[in-house]
């Protein structure tokens, strides 16, 4: 598996690689992901109220916080760094995002629908119904941006940096895509905060 995930080219023709290989998926994190997946499955399967709420609140809090921080704090800083500095940062930062973000998104979404249904928030006469529909739309737009643009760019940067001769211009272009989309999802998370605090207090 390590061989499959370690992507440094095996057909390297140039000078020996003096850069450490980037592990696109940090294997040490996979057992933690497995525990989270089992926990969420048990919570859903047994309708365990505390575990459902914990998964949704912890996953959602992390998702929102990370998106806001990356989009509005890390992103602008990254945009002002030189290409080598960006590459150095990305080599350490992006593999962690590859494993953290899908996990917290899965925790939040898989449990959120069940909680909303149990609390009656999905019913048409619920005061929270309209807010939840807006929330679905916000999450839908964020998912399309994250899955269609941000994550592919993130992984493509890591593969590019593992090449014997990485293309700096291409890395810069993909990183710009990452920074812009992270900024958009960060701003959209503000809407999520407003919606979820409205839902929790009505």
């Amino acid at each position, binding site marked *: 598996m390590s061989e*499959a*995930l370690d*992507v440094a*080219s095996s*057909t390297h*023709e*140039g*000078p020996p690689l003096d850069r450490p290989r980037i592990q696109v*998926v940090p294997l040490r994190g996979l057992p933690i992901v497995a525990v989270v*997946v089992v926990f*969420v*499955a048990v919570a*859903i*399967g047994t*309708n365990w109220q505390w575990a459902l709420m914990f998964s949704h609140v912890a996953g959602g809090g992390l998702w929102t916080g990370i998106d806001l921080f990356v989009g509005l704090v890390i992103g602008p800083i990254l945009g002002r760094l030189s290409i080598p500095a960006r590459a150095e940062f990305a080599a350490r930062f992006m593999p962690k995002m590859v494993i953290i973000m*899908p996990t917290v*998104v*899965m925790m939040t*979404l*898989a*449990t959120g*629908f*069940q909680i909303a*249904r149990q609390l009656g928030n*999905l*019913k*048409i006469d619920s005061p929270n119904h309209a807010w939840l*529909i807006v929330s*679905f*739309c916000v999450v*839908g737009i964020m*998912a*399309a941006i994250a*899955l*269609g*643009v941000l*994550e*592919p*760019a993130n*992984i*493509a940067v890591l*593969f*590019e940096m593992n090449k*014997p*001769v990485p*293309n700096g211009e*291409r890395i810069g272009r993909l990183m710009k895509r990452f920074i812009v989309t992270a900024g958009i999802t960060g701003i959209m998370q503000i809407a999520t905060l407003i919606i979820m605090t409205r839902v929790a207090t009505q």
Partner: protein
Amino acid sequence: MSVEHASASSNMVDRPYPPVAWLSTGALCLVIIGGIFLASYAPRVAPRSVTISLLAGGAVLLAASITALVRVKVFSWTTFMKVFKWALLAYVITAGMIEFAFVGDHTRGVSLVIVSCMLLIFAVSVPITIAFTVARYAEPD
């Protein structure tokens, strides 16, 4: 690797490709819209004509994406398959969890079939987008 070789390689990998990622992302967008539409009606049943139209649109875009992909002659299929199989594993697990939540919430019948088909498109389209984006910048096989 010489400068000339690097430059030639760069030209090879920066060549234009069909809009595979755009089509698969379009399929993803349609099933996301369909999912929002279904969820907005829960626990009632959403109008089937709308959900089935969105599902069919997503299926057509995904099929177009796969067709455009298999027609590409010069491409790093090795890189594509390496990324695709791991991404597919990850998104099949994610889709499975969402399906599990719907089944746990007693979604049954045609609604469950529609949700399952939408999740299938989700689980295939995202790995295609990721793997194609990575492989288009890799050295062709």
